[in-house]
């Protein structure tokens, strides 16, 4: 809402020294968000005067028609000046605004006397746009009247300040100069004579003219409906300059007197108005629902709109003629010949208008106001004011008013008089409470408990808490003291929260850089990742209104986002990349439909829902576990003076997963796996506590190609929630054995198909509890071992808790380990 300060001054007797900044400051403190204070023509300076066109000579020898004008700007400004002008919308005798040499117009446009089109142009005749007053550049500004030599800047309101206010949804009344003026008056402690409660004098309706009949078909849509009629209106009548200037300053474009007056009164009082051409109406004008099978309506913006049965509409005997409170229909619009004006002022109910506007994706000045709630009783006052202006400037005969109104009884809110004090934490006595509520416009009864009737322009005041806010904001939020509440002792982070933080640190410690990618993906990503149809990762929830049609799904895996991020880093010249993310993925349960349920449970909010209702709500949601993932490409260790670098491999991916798990106290085991999107021969399933919790390894070459990544890019992804579930609740302490250690190395020859981890497992099991470590330290394939076999060398460490082991004990344990590997995997001890 843009509010010119001079308009506010008309309603509130502000001291002259109070400027717009001071007003803005007080309004902000009172809860109106003043976003900016603008000065009209703030960048115009120098001489700007009213001139009269005395003569026009048409110059025709140029590509476009040019006028050589003689303009009288008054003796003190040099009398008659010759000025060249390209516009043609003025005539001899018209008053215009002339920028004299020395003036500077917006865009640092300096006016000088200069030769052009064969003449010396001694100034410039200005258009609105050149002065920064609007976008109207069809022609120069022709003034309604004027005195030659007068200051043009003052006349045009240059230097006038305008407040731009962002109105919150609860303060619909502030979408009017009247509403803002009330706040200004309150803020400065000045009296306020509310123009919205003043019924202006209109002439008695003409005896030979009838008002236009009206009605309301659905009182749930409309509480108050009025029509005033003026006959014999002059459609060519001009809008007065002062009204045009206020409209422009308020951000509206002047159109014609009838339209301008409806807009002007809406800005002034907050009541949207609509003018019909009586000649185009058929029978009574009524408000109601569109109902079934209403034909499409063409609205003022020349859009044909299919109507929903629940749309709030205006109709006459010909059918629907407008979207009530949103936009009028094209076919009953006033035009250049309209002389019979029927002026609608109504109070439509907020929610149906909001729904109608939303359905048609049509937010108008009117709908913005109705959605927030228009003054319940204002309509006849506002239409009287509009009729007064129309009659004054457009002539015609007043033909009277018709009205329909549902019964109105202002609500009464019972509030403890000390509630503002108890809520704010500062002393606010009863008298202060009453005083401020009266300033807001409330009527108050009662003593310890106040019975408060909010004014009709404050439909937002429904609860005691709403009244508390009014009182406290007028006392001043800045006067609230400050105190720290004493929370009871807390338990700190939950185990999951703590472990998730640890996992993030572990990932960073492993050299991985955390990024936060958008959780959106497309079917294309799943195809690119070679995810099979029917696989769990295909059960992705779908957005009804995605930002991009390519990414309508919620991610079921972190990899698409990370692969895109890796790609972006590569494109920025970063070759060695280790990036990762911890975030939620979203998976539909088998019994959840991607489109959701038809009738989701929506329990009331007046009380706590039952446990069954809450469970039904929870059942709507997809599963949303935290995942941890990383992608690595390029050097894991860089080339340097120490020697060559080392590219990241499948082993790094597994090691990162494993070290994160270790930091959380979980041992994970790698098992050969072939799952997408990984290389089927270079991928491990990560197993914790017997459950597969993720995968790590080299990406499948086709995946790498699709995402244009370097060959051998590796990745890992694991279900962090599952990993944390495998962590100990309370970690047990180890036996730290202090007896001497015995070290033995063995080399076992096994078939290549046998997994090294399985051989190690067998050795460990066979060697028994004296064996504290089995570590593989070499893998050999070559002439020393049979074709299709390899030799695995293990370092074993033996130690007892309570004694030095004898050579016999050590040998027996070692042989038992070898024997178990032989039994399970056909391993043969090498080199003995």
């Amino acid at each position: 809402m843009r509010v010119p300060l001079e308009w506010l001054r008309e309603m509130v007797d502000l001291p002259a020294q109070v400027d717009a900044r001071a007003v803005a400051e007080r309004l902000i403190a009172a809860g109106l968000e003043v976003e900016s204070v603008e000065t009209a023509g703030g960048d115009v300076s120098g001489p700007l005067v009213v001139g009269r066109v005395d003569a026009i000579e048409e110059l025709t020898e140029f590509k476009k028609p040019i006028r050589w004008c003689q303009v009288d700007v008054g003796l003190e400004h040099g009398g008659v000046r010759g000025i060249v002008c390209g516009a043609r919308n003025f005539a001899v005798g018209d008053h215009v605004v002339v920028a004299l040499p020395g003036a500077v117009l917006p865009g640092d446009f300096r006016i000088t006397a200069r030769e052009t089109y064969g003449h010396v142009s001694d100034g410039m005749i200005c258009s609105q746009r050149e002065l920064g007053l609007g976008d109207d550049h069809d022609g120069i500004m022709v003034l309604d009247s004027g005195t030659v030599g007068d200051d043009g800047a003052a006349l045009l309101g240059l230097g006038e300040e305008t407040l731009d206010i962002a109105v919150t949804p609860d303060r619909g009344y502030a979408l009017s100069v009247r509403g803002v003026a009330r706040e200004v008056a309150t803020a400065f402690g000045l009296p306020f004579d509310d123009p919205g409660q003043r019924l202006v004098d209109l002439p008695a309706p003409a005896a030979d003219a009838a008002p236009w009949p009206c009605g309301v078909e659905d009182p749930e849509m409309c509480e108050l409906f009025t029509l005033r009629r003026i006959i014999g209106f002059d459609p060519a009548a001009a809008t007065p300059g002062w009204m045009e200037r206020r409209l422009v300053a308020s951000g509206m474009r002047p159109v014609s007197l009838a339209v301008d007056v409806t807009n002007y009164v809406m800005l002034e009082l907050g009541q949207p108005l609509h003018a019909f051409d009586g000649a185009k109406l058929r029978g009574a004008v009524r408000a109601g629902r569109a109902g079934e099978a209403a034909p499409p309506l063409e609205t003022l913006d020349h859009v044909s709109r299919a109507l929903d049965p629940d749309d709030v509409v205006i109709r006459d005997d010909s059918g629907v003629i407008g979207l009530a409170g949103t936009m009028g229909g094209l076919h009953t619009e006033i035009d250049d010949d309209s002389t019979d004006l029927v002026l609608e002022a109504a109070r439509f109910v907020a929610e149906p208008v909001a729904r109608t506007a939303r359905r048609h994706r049509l937010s108008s000045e009117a709908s913005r106001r109705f959605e927030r709630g228009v003054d319940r009783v204002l309509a006849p006052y506002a239409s009287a004011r509009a009729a007064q202006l129309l009659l004054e400037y457009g002539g015609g005969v007043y033909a009277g008013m018709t009205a329909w109104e549902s019964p109105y009884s202002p609500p009464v809110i019972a509030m403890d008089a000390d509630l503002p004090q108890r809520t704010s934490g500062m002393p606010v006595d009863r008298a202060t409470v009453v005083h401020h509520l009266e300033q807001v416009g409330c009527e108050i009864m009662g003593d310890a408990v106040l019975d408060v009737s909010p004014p009709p322009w404050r439909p937002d005041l429904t609860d005691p808490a709403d009244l508390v806010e009014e009182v406290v904001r007028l006392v001043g939020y800045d006067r609230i003291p400050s105190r720290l509440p004493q929370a009871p002792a807390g338990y700190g982070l939950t185990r999951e929260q703590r472990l998730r933080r640890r996992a993030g640190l572990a990932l960073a410690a492993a050299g991985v850089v955390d990024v936060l990618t958008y959780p959106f993906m497309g079917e294309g990503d799943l195809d690119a990742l070679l995810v099979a149809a029917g696989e769990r990762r295909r059960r992705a929830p779908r957005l009804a209104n995605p930002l991009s049609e390519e990414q309508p799904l919620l991610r079921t895996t972190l990899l698409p986002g990370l692969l895109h991020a890796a790609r972006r880093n590569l494109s920025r010249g970063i070759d060695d990349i280790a990036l990762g993310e911890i975030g939620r993925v979203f998976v539909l349960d088998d019994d959840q439909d991607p489109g959701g349920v038809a009738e989701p449970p929506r329990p009331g909010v007046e009380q706590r829902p039952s446990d069954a209702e809450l469970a039904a709500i929870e059942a709507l949601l997809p599963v949303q576990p935290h995942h941890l993932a990383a992608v690595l490409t390029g050097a894991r260790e860089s080339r340097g003076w120490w020697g060559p670098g080392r590219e990241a491999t499948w082993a790094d991916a597994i090691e990162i997963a494993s070290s994160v798990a270790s930091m959380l106290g979980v041992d994970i085991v790698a098992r050969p796996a072939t799952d997408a999107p990984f290389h089927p021969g270079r991928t491990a399933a990560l197993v914790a506590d017997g459950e597969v919790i993720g995968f790590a390894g080299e990406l499948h070459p086709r995946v790498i190609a699709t995402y244009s990544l370097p060959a051998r890019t590796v990745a890992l992804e694991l279900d962090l929630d599952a990993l944390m579930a495998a962590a100990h609740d309370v970690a047990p302490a180890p036996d730290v054995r202090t007896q001497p250690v015995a070290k033995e190395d063995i080399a076992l020859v096994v078939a290549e198909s046998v997994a090294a981890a399985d051989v190690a497992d067998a050795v460990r099991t066979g060697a028994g509890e004296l064996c504290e470590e089995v570590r593989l330290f070499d893998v050999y394939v070559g002439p020393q071992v049979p074709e299709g076999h390899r030799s695995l060398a293990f370092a074993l460490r033996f130690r007892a808790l309570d004694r030095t082991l004898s050579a016999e004990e050590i040998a027996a344990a070692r042989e038992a380990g070898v024997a178990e590997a032989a039994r399970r995997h056909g391993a043969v001890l090498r080199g003995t």
Partner: protein
Amino acid sequence: MSAPNNPYDPVAVSTLEPEAVDAMVAAALADIESAGDLDEIKVVRLAHAGDRSPLALANREIGALPPAAKAEAGKRVGSARQTVRDALDARLARLEIERDARVLVEESVDVTLPTRRSGLGARHPLTTLMERMAEVFMAMGYEVAEGPEAEAEWFNFDALNVPPDHPARTMQDTFFVGSERSGVVLRTQTSPIQLRAMLARDLPIYVVAPGRVFRTDELDATHTPVFHQIEGLAVDEGITMADLKGTLEHLAAAMFGEGVQIRLRPSYFPFTEPSAELDLQCFVCRGASVGNPEAPCRTCSSEGWIEWGGCGMVNPRVLRAAGIDTARYSGFAFGMGVERTLMFRHGVTDMRDMVEGDIRFSRAFGVEV
């Protein structure tokens, strides 16, 4: 000590005469002093302290002396041998130090050579910042509450007193999951966690809730459709706006330094009443840039204040939806954008840096903000 010339015994063993012993010591000391390296000192040690050294041989002669002279001669020779050994050890130690100094100098390397072989990891600064803010509250006894990102409309809107036709529910702002009527949205705010906390926890409740939220805004320098908020909630007996103000002042001091002012401005949120916008005094210029074109401030655009978040007293309607007795309990809630906080606290000028996953961005922050 006996005087060297005491003539009490005619049996003379010449090598045990004081003069002879002194001469042996003198010779030994001279050789020790002239030993120039560890090899030479080894030879000298053999010559003067070895089994066949003059002093060792002299020592063997002691047995031949009359008992009365044995003690004195033993003492004399013992002392002489000790003197020689001490001199040898001292010389050895000095030669070793000289050798070490020489060798260690020869072994020296260029420690300014690069040492980092693999890239450093880092956490995302938004994550770290959220944790840090949460820690301020945990120190006051708050716990961290969480909720799902794909959230029921009932939690995200209905129970937060966002009426069915509130603009926030429209397609312009909210991502709908499944369909517009499915009852599931991507949460547009962390406030649904308030409800979840109130439904799940015993009173009194003090929680802080960081999390990811979603709005259908296009990505640009100051907007991103996926961003983060941190929310606080206190529900207790006698909670007032003064408690809210004090708590926010504490957070501001913890995040921006002691003495940074905050300001509450009346505003509107459906789930709080009264509601306020939370402004932070510019922690860079502390307001000194206002009306002072000589010293403009980029952080606050010379406004003196930075919009930080929203807050208010929990609307009793919300408390009722959670089954809380509004006659007995009241609460406050607040929330702020984490991206915004990171932007003005750390001078990030383009929000795209936070979401594009360029590893240089996160890496610049390490694991602390």
